[in-house]
């Protein structure tokens, strides 16, 4: 497994995403909230050690909604299956804001400062997403060296890929990849972590991605701008 131990400075955080996570759709927080947010970001730069890793597997689809990789069968659902169908190689990845950031969130929670806790939670989500972008960049680079193209990334819990399948996904990785553990409900510790898959192949066409293809009406990403 190719792994990366990072500093926050290695990542590109998208502040607009943080504002969206905080519920600001199309507007900016006021000066006071901005200052608090800057303090959270400053602290994050001091303590946060994101990690990411990926492995490349050969394999392929089995029917419309299952994929077989390294002898492991995962039911990824038809939406994702359709997008991964043309791929011949698959990048499986994990990305995490890291344990230190989880500890920071816990400290804020214990302190009772709910405003800072909320801001730090939103920042943590964006750190995890930025770490995903970093590792996808690495996978895409490796694919390019083979003159191959990459799909978008897809994660358990979205687009019809049930979160319980995360157990299968993690069975392909070494134990506790990048320090990430699964609980009985197949949720990840540290909580600000993401796992997923990316398809690689010759005849890959990058498709539009986002809420439009998923159709998960109950997703928090749909609610956060409402």
């Amino acid at each position, binding site marked *: 497994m190719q792994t990366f131990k990072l500093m926050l400075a290695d990542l590109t955080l998208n502040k607009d995403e943080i504002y969206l996570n905080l519920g600001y759709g199309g507007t900016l927080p006021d000066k006071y909230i901005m200052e608090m947010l800057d303090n959270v970001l400053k602290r994050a730069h001091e303590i946060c050690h994101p990690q990411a890793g990926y492995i490349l597997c050969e394999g392929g689809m089995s029917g419309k909604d299952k994929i077989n990789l390294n002898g492991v069968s995962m039911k990824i659902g038809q939406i994702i299956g359709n997008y991964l169908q043309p791929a011949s190689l698959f990048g499986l990845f994990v990305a995490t804001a890291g344990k230190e950031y989880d500890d920071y969130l816990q400290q804020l929670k214990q302190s009772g400062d709910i*405003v800072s806790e909320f801001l730090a939670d939103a920042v943590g989500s964006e750190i995890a997403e930025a770490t995903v972008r970093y590792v996808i960049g690495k996978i895409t680079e490796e694919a390019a060296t083979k003159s191959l193209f990459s799909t978008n990334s897809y994660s358990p819990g979205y687009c019809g890929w*049930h979160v319980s399948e995360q157990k299968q996904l993690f069975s392909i990785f070494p134990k506790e990849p990048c320090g990430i553990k699964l609980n009985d409900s197949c949720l990840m510790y540290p909580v600000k972590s993401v796992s997923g898959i990316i398809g690689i192949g010759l005849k890959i066409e990058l498709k539009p991605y986002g809420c439009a293809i998923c159709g998960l009406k109950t997703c928090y990403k749909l609610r956060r701008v409402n």
Partner: protein
Amino acid sequence: MADLNILYESILSGKLEPAVAITVEAIEEGLDPQIIINDFMIKAMEEIGARFECGKAYVPNLLMSARAMKGSLDLLKPLLKGDTSSSMGKVVIGTVKGDLHDIGKNIVASMLEGCGFEVINLGVDVTSEQFVEAVKVHNADIICMSALLTTTMIYMKEVVEAIEAAGLKNKVKIMIGGAPVSQSFALKIGATGFSDNANSAVQKAKELMAAN
């Protein structure tokens, strides 16, 4: 003389220190705590709630107002001892078993506290037994359950059933919240109420208490 309009403005704009300072001044001057709370503090929370509902305020604003409100309430509550109106009601809140999502539930807890409810926060990954036990131990009026996943929201039904089995269904109101849940889901599992944001959660909790 303590200017209670400044207290109102401080809570509305989420400024803890001036809210506390004016409250201390008002207490020293012997002003009626119930009037301070009802005519100024609750009014400020109602206003920030109204602004939130029409998109003129955001969750951080709600939380800052709740923090300022709580800072003042903590000073006034001891003066209301023995008065039944000193607490809006007692709430047990938690994210259901299997789910680790914390922040939405904590926001609701904070808003409820800011609006005068006594809140017992059980944390995340809370079992039906823990909910039942907490209701018994704390003599709670309301249970608030949270879940962020479609896979974990189904556990809410188990909690409702456990409450029924413990003979508490007529004693405690059950509220649910979180991205995947809805009013229809609440009705389906036998919950009393549903809310999709922290402000409406407080309103719903007040409604349920008023209906008692």
